[in-house]
Structure formats: C-alpha cells, structure tokens
C-alpha cells in the first residue's frame, strides 16, 4: 500500500507493508506511479540493486536515490522488487532485482521527475507488525 501527496516543491511518498521487502516494493511502485502519472509499468527487463547503509533511514533514502538515478539516466522505472531487505542494526542491506521498463521520455512527460530523496520529515518505523515509511522527494 502506498500513497502520494504533493507539497510545495516536492512530493511525499508514504508506504506500509508487513515486511521490509514489501515496504521497499511498495515504495518502488509508488515511485513509478509518481513518475508516470499512473500509467502502467510493465516488467520487461531487470536492474540489479545492491545497497548497504549504517541505518534504515539511510538505506531507504539511498534506495529511492537509486531509483532516481535509474530514471534520470536510463528512463527505467520499477514494476516491483524481488530480493532481500534487512533493516536490522547498523548494517542494513538491500540485495534485489527490480523488474521494470525503460519508458520513452514522451511517456514520462505527464509524470513528475523526482530529482532526489531527502531526509526531510523522513519516517521509518515498525509498529504492530507493519513497516511504515514516509519520504519526501524533491521534484
């Protein structure tokens, strides 16, 4: 489950899931919806992503920034996430493949180009067995 809301020069992406992998999958899907204004993204190709960070917040921001980089340089948008996400302790990791699609620039014209994920009002928590995250994207 994810939700997008627009701010003054940014957008906030909120997501929730019952696992860390699920949370990051929802964030990836939300990112694609934001970037393509809701148009379908098909799982036609894959990108491998490998990240590590000293804390969960940093892993989250780095993951979205990975999506920003793939979109800005290759036009790639994810349709899902397959792999492992660990948010434990001070050695957080993500090893995953992103099925998705390289969208021609024309198809992205109606969407928003997120230029960076920020630590502004960042939230990441596990409450009642549900992982929840909220990240602000600079547009």
């Amino acid at each position, binding site marked *: 489950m994810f939700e997008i809301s*627009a701010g003054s*020069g940014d957008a906030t992406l909120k997501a929730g899931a019952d696992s860390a992998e699920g949370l990051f999958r929802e964030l990836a899907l939300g990112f694609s919806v934001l970037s393509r204004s809701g148009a379908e993204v098909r799982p036609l190709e894959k990108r491998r992503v490998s990240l590590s960070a000293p804390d969960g917040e940093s892993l989250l921001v780095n993951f979205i920034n990975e999506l920003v980089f793939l979109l800005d340089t290759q036009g790639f948008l994810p349709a899902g996430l397959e792999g492992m996400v660990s948010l434990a302790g001070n050695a957080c990791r993500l090893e995953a493949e992103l099925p998705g699609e390289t969208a021609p*620039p024309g198809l992205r*014209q109606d969407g*928003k180009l997120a230029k960076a994920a920020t*630590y*502004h009002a960042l939230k990441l928590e596990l409450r009642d067995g549900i992982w929840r995250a909220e990240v602000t994207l600079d547009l």
Partner: protein
Amino acid sequence: MSGLIERLDGFRLRIPPSYKPGMNGPVIVYADPVIEKDLENSALEQAANTATLPGLVGAALAMPDIHSGYGFPIGGVAAFDARDGVISPGGVGYDINCGVRLIATSLEAGTAAKRLQDLSLRLYAGIPAGVGAGGGVRVGRREQEALLTGGAAWAVNNGLGRPEDLGAIESGGALPGADPDAVSARALERGRDQLGTLGSGNHFMEVQEVTDVYDEDSARAFGLFKGQLTVMLHTGSRGFGHQVCTDFIEVMRAAAARYGIALADQQLAAAPFRSTEGQRYFGAMQAAANYAWANRQALTGLTREIFEKVFGMGAKALDMRLVYDVAHNIAKLEEHEIGGKKLALVVHRKGATRAFGPGHPELPAAYAPYGQPVIIPGDMGRASYLLAGTGGAMAETFGSSCHGAGRLISRGEALRRARGRRIADELAGKGIWVRSSGRETLSEEMPEAYKNVENVVAVVTGAGIARRVARFRPLAVIKG
C-alpha cells in the same frame, strides 16, 4: 513561535537566540506586516535551526520570500567563519547554482508584438524542457572536466555565446576552486546530456517587456529602457547538481557525527569548512556551479539563434546583450567586514541572491557605481524586477537580498484551485503566451501559487538591502 518574535521596525523581525537551545545567534526575518501574515512557522523554525550550526557569524537571515525547504529554509542566508565554521550542502540546496539571467534586446515590445506567438512556439520547440528532458549539448567524458572548471567560458569557447557575456556573470561564470575529482561518476552521468536544457518545475524562460524604470542612470548603465523586449531565464545545474548534493548529504551526515556537530535536522548535515569533507564538498559544489553557468550560457546561445530567425535580424542588429546572471543557491568564500575587521566567511545563500553594493571590486566596471544587478523573477502572470545591491546589504546581510516571489501555496493546493480552469487561456486573455511540456505544470505554477512579488520587493527596498531599477511584465513564457 509568534509570541517569541520581536518586531524591530517596519521591515525586520527578530527571533532571539534564546528561542531554542544551541542557537549561536538570532534570526533576522525581513518582513513587513503584509509578508508576516503569510510566514510559515516551519520555515522560521528551519531558520532558527541554521543558527545552531557552529561558526555562525552575526545572525541567520530570512528574506521576505522565505518558505519551507529541506534543512535550511528557501530564502535563507547564513554566514560561517571560514576558520572554524561549517559548510553544509543543505545550505546550498539540491539545484546548486540555480539562478537567473536577464538578456536585453534592441527591440521594443510594441513592434515585436505580432511575432510573439511565433516566437513562443519556436522557443518552445527549440529549448529542451520538461521532465527528464535530455536533448541538450551532449558532452563527452574528456570534455566534462573542462566544462566543470571552465563554466560559462567553456560554453563560449564552444560557440554558445560571446566573450563579453562572461563579464556580466556573477564570478565571471566560473568558480576557480572547482574540483572535478570530487564529483562522483553518477553526477557525471546525470549531467552528460542535460547541458542546454531548461528542466521542469519552476524553471522557465520568459520574454518580457520593461514596463517601469525607477532609476534612469542605473537602467542606462545596465542597457535597459522602458518598452524594451527582454528575456529572463531561470534554471540551474540539473541532475548533475542534484547528484552532487545527494552524494554529499551522506558524506556530511557521517562527518557531522565524527566532528561532534549536533544536527537539529538531518538535512543540515555539515562539516567544518577546513576539513577534508568540507573542502571536497566545496570543490564539487563549485564544479556544479560552473555546470549551471555553462547551462544558462548554452541556453542563451540557443535563444539568440531563435530570436535571429524569428525576427530575421542579425546578431549585431538584435544586440542581445547579457545584462547579468546571478546565482541564488550557492555557498561562496567571501571577505566581509565584521566589527571593523575583515573576515573570510562561507556565505550560504539558499534561495537568496548576492546583492553587492556600489564600488565592490567584484562588479563589472560599468556597473560598479550603481551596485550589482539583482534579478527577481515573479510569477508568470504578474511582474519581475531588476534591483541593485546597496551599501545596506553589505552592512547587514553579507551583501544578499531575496531571490523571487516565493511560493505561497503547495503544488497540491494549486492543482486543487486550478481544477476546472484553463490557466493558459486566462493568461492569454492578459496577453501572455504560455507553453508548457508538463500537463500539470501550468496549474502548479499559476500566478496565485506565489506571493505577490510587489510585496517582496517592497520589503527589501524598504529595508534598504536593495533598490528598484526596473520592472518587467511577462509576454511569453516557456515552462518545463
């Protein structure tokens, strides 16, 4: 917050250092009662947070166009002692050296009126703009280093402008400390095909008419006259600058912990200016600043070509002279007089414009008697301004002023208010041709999404940190 703010005079408010633990000085907010009404508490809170960073000199400053940003507010100025103070990527922003340039023409708006629609269509077709727009000047790996150190001069040397343009750009269009080795491969990749592109969001190219001249001598020195057709351009360092900021926020978070810098907000991540991390960021940031100047220079070259075709005139007859180019997202090492002594300061201007007063050695000789041109874009339906820097700005704002109208409502709220309306038609009814590549951009950027620039300019001129030279109205607008 409101009970703690003290009004100093008609144009200044003060948040005392006692407002929050760790503040190293007060916050001075430039606001009259009209601007004060719309001040966001969150932006003022952010201004107070900047005052907690080590090495703050004097006060943290908030310009009248202040609004909430990430870490530092947009419309904020903070200067830190270069000896023991910090540098912070959050104090510069993601779009490093986002800025504005103003280009004059020999044309009068009245005589150019019947070509305006054609001009706006050709500018829209010829200027790469919008979400993810590449299609600019593709720069090979070997050339990138020359671009990052050369800035606007690199573009001029590659046929995208004239040598005399360089004298009319802040810092000559290149910062000398650019360090391409401090820039990541990712930043280089994001920047490779975005040179000469406008981007999206609030970036624009606007054809304007000079409607009012407030100071004939200054206007003449800057090459402006009433009724003149001019071009204003607003863009920055594109994905390249964003990646540099993204990279160094991570570096600075770790550095802040290592140097014992307490952060009121993670986006304030900072390191001592003289530290290895501080110097690497400063080098990378200067490279991004140079990229932005090359970008605006490349767009100037494209714009001149389009004007020459549309009006069927040669470059000499059209005389598209660069009036000035200012950065409004940058940190610069500057010398300022503090308490009678000259101090080297790292002046962070995030959504704020340098506004050096008359006689400053960094100004072009022809402009020196009048002060630095300060370009203040408004919104696409009302007006923009050219101001000049003053001695007052040198004395109290580290030679800084505002940078624009400043947003009043969020993009989401603007979309809601624009529902059922045709913004392009409304503007066309006022004689303004608007072209935008993004479906929702016009709604998000509609005039009432911004503060009235008249109110912002009234504060900076009333406070004496800038003075009016000329006012412009939009005739044709290209948005990303």
